Each structure stands twice: as structure tokens, then as C-alpha cells.
């Protein structure tokens, strides 16, 4: 393999480059991205940049400072428009085509939007989005409606509220972060936001945006009208795979890979758009998380140039910061799992809770208890008996 093209210069793409170089690959690497500048580090976009405590230019990816070491040809402002996977021929938006020996697909995802776009209605994905919303907050809006209480929505709500703005969260599910959290932890997040003065509306959707020249409010599916001069939608993302239609790759809510992130011979995928069968959990996962992008990207890069690898099967882990709470979750959790607080309490916003399925502990959440979150993540890399997990915290199984 002499020439690898990486499509996407965000976290997963550059982590793949790093993985290739660490494997000793000294061939040519071309990185293309449709963005005009190197994509930012995303976690601060809904937190510090939005909150005005970090300058936008400081939100740089971990690999940004090491671009020279990585020895790449970086082509910004150029996107891939189509691929023929069998010949690894890529058409680019500048009209050129390239044939590569290896390909890393890391084009990420794009945010879903509310129907009926109006000025004053935003999504948050790019640095420009974050800067634009922060500028709106500088104008001291009367009320912000945040649609969706997933990661982005919950963090945006917390950041806006911390800036003193009145905030309403509208979430169609019964609980915040329902996709990734068991119910009682979702309840903790609801209580956290309400205690901070956020108006949290659950189990209700948006039926329409109100306003003519600019958003003036939202109408909910139960008929309620909420006045708002700023609306931020955090209603999920769609894998950016449109350019891969007809490529020969299997698409299905992302790029479908094998256990080693291989999507086709000489083609790997990583990051928000990569779906792969996780050997340990016996199901296909697609993970939209920062740490996964780094770990999976690095793995995919090594896999591509070294040709063989153990299956990619890490214990998922993520964190979110809301108000004074740093919440970390390790493991693979379903809404019906039993939850047991084993350390601290939700009332003091400092606790560890374990998740049980049958005889095993399958996950842990820690709020302001980071050391326990990472220790549990390490333990969860092997099957962990419930009793053993409790014993780690000095708790009897009763």
C-alpha cells in the first residue's frame, strides 16, 4: 500500500492518520475535507465556546498541533462526491478523480433540522454554529427553546442557563438522553435541569415553528405555544453517507463494516458514520462519541495498513458536562436495566450507579466521580459478575 486517502479531517480521520503513522506506514497520505478550515474539537462547542469561556480559535483537535509530524497532504474545501469501492476511485468536488490503494471513510454526520427553517433557529455541529449561537446569546434573548434533550440539547440548555437565559427544553421522549441512559439516570438529569431553573417538557414534540421574518416561538404537539426568540435543535444526526450511494459499499444507518472496521477490501470507516458488529455485545453499534472517534479512528488506520487485527470491541464510554456535573458512562446500557447507586447520592450530585442485567454488571455511570467511571470501564472489558461489581464498592448484594 503506497497511497491512502482519508475522507474527512475531523477527529476520526486524523486519528486514522495517526494510527497509520504509528504502525510505521511511510507511504503517501492525502486528507480531504469539504470544510474550508480544519474541523474543530467538538466537545467545547456546546460548552466553553458557547458559554464564552473559550475562544473559538482555541477549540482545536488534539491532532491539529501535530499535523507536520503526520506528514499529510491536506486538501481543505474539497469534498468527495462519489466512490467506486471496487476500484477505490474517488471523485472530488473540484472535478478531479483519484485512485488510492487504501481509503479511510470518516465524513461524520450532519444534524437533523426542524422543518420550516427561520432565522433564529439553529443546529449545533460546526464551529460557525457555536459562534453564531453564542452571538445570539450576547444579545440577551428572552427565552431559548432547546428542542431535544440528548447530548447536544442538554449541554446547550445547561450552557444557556448558566449564562442567565430563560430556557425551555422540549423532548419528545419521556426522559432526557433516553437512547443511552437507563430511566432513573434520565430522571436525575431532568431534576438537575429543573433545579437549575430550566422548564423541562417531556413526552411532547414540536408541531411548528412560529414567526415570519424570525422565529417568535414554537407550537407543541399538545397545542401549547412557547414564546422564544432563539431555538436550538439537538434532534440527532444523520450519517453523512449520501456521497456513497452507488459506491458498492453496504449502507444502512451508516457505513456497514466488519468486526475490524473494514467496509470493503482496502476500505475502512471510522467515527460517527461507522456501523460495525461488536463481538462482545452481539449487535451492530454506531457510536457518535469523541473518545470512540479517536480510538476507532486509530484502530481503523492501523487495520488498513497492517492488514490484520483483533476485532474492534471496546467498552463504550462517554462524558457530558452540565452545570457542575461531570457525568461519565461506561458500558452498553438499555432502558430496562436495573440501576443501583453504590456510592454517594443523586441529591449531592456526586454518585456512582451500576447497571445490572441478569447476573452481570453491564455498565456504570458516575457523576463527579471520574476515577470510578474509568475503573469500571476497565473492569467491564471482561464479563463482570454483579456481586463482584458491588463488592468493589463494598456493597452487599441484598
Amino acid at each position, binding site marked *: 500500500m503506497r497511497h491512502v486517502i482519508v475522507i474527512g479531517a475531523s477527529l476520526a480521520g486524523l486519528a486514522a492518520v495517526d494510527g497509520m503513522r504509528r504502525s510505521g506506514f511511510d507511504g503517501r497520505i492525502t486528507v480531504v475535507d469539504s470544510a474550508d478550515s480544519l474541523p474543530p474539537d467538538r466537545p467545547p462547542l456546546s460548552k466553553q465556546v458557547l458559554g464564552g469561556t473559550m475562544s473559538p480559535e482555541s477549540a482545536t483537535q*488534539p491532532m491539529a498541533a501535530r499535523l507536520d509530524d503526520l506528514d499529510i497532504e491536506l486538501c481543505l474545501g474539497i469534498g468527495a462526491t462519489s466512490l467506486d469501492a471496487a476500484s477505490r476511485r474517488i471523485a472530488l468536488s473540484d472535478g478531479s478523480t483519484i485512485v488510492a490503494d487504501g481509503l479511510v471513510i470518516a465524513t461524520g454526520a450532519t444534524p437533523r433540522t426542524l422543518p420550516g427553517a427561520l432565522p433564529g433557529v439553529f443546529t449545533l455541529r460546526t464551529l460557525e454554529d457555536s459562534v453564531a449561537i453564542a452571538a445570539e446569546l450576547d444579545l440577551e434573548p428572552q427565552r431559548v427553546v432547546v428542542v431535544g434533550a440528548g447530548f447536544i440539547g442538554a449541554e446547550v440548555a445547561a450552557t444557556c442557563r448558566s449564562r442567565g437565559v430563560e430556557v425551555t427544553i422540549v423532548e419528545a421522549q419521556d426522559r432526557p438522553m433516553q437512547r443511552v441512559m437507563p430511566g432513573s439516570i434520565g430522571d436525575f438529569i431532568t431534576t438537575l435541569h429543573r433545579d437549575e431553573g430550566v422548564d423541562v417538557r417531556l413526552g411532547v414534540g414540536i408541531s411548528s415553528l412560529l414567526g415570519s421574518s424570525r422565529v417568535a416561538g414554537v407550537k407543541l404537539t399538545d397545542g401549547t405555544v412557547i414564546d422564544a426568540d432563539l431555538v436550538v435543535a439537538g434532534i440527532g444526526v444523520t450519517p453523512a453517507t449520501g456521497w456513497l450511494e452507488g459506491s458498492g459499499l453496504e449502507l444502512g444507518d451508516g457505513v456497514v463494516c466488519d468486526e475490524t472496521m473494514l467496509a470493503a477490501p482496502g476500505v475502512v470507516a471510522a467515527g460517527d458514520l461507522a456501523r460495525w458488529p461488536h463481538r462482545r455485545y452481539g449487535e451492530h453499534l454506531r457510536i457518535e462519541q469523541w*473518545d470512540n472517534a479517536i480510538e476507532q479512528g486509530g484502530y481503523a488506520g492501523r487495520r488498513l495498513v497492517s492488514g490484520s487485527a483483533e476485532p474492534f470491541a471496546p467498552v463504550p464510554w462517554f462524558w457530558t*458536562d452540565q452545570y457542575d456535573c*461531570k457525568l461519565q458512562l461506561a458500558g452498553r446500557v438499555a432502558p430496562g436495566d436495573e440501576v443501583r447507586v453504590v456510592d454517594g447520592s443523586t441529591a449531592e450530585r456526586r454518585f456512582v450507579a451500576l447497571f445490572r442485567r441478569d447476573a452481570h454488571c453491564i455498565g456504570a455511570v458516575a457523576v*463527579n466521580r*471520574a476515577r470510578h*467511571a474509568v475503573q469500571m470501564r476497565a473492569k467491564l472489558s471482561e464479563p463482570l459478575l454483579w456481586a463482584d461489581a458491588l463488592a468493589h464498592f463494598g456493597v452487599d448484594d441484598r
Partner: protein
Amino acid sequence: MRITVDYDLCESNAICMAILPEVFEVREDDLLYILDEFPPEEYRSKLEEAVRRCPKQALTLED
């Protein structure tokens, strides 16, 4: 080889501790402690991984 942490950036996410507990320890007070500021060469690749995966980019490895 020297590993340092910028405590203005560090949020004690403890990722580094997961990667190399011999050098990084987040204690009950939620602060990160560097157990060995001049760690042995055998830890280099894990130190580099810790630097790379710190969500706050608070770690620096110098030769």
C-alpha cells in the same frame, strides 16, 4: 522524558489513569496526581496515548 499537566485545563476525566495508572492517579478529591513526572522509557507509547486521548488536551510530554 517528562510528563506535565496543565491544571488550568485538567478536569479530572481520568482517561489518563485508565491508560497508565502507574503514572496518573485521580484521587478521592477528584484531582489528578502525577505519580512519576519522569517516567521510564517503557511507558512512552502509553504516555503518548494519554496525551492524545485527554479530552482537555491538558497533558504534555517532553523529551
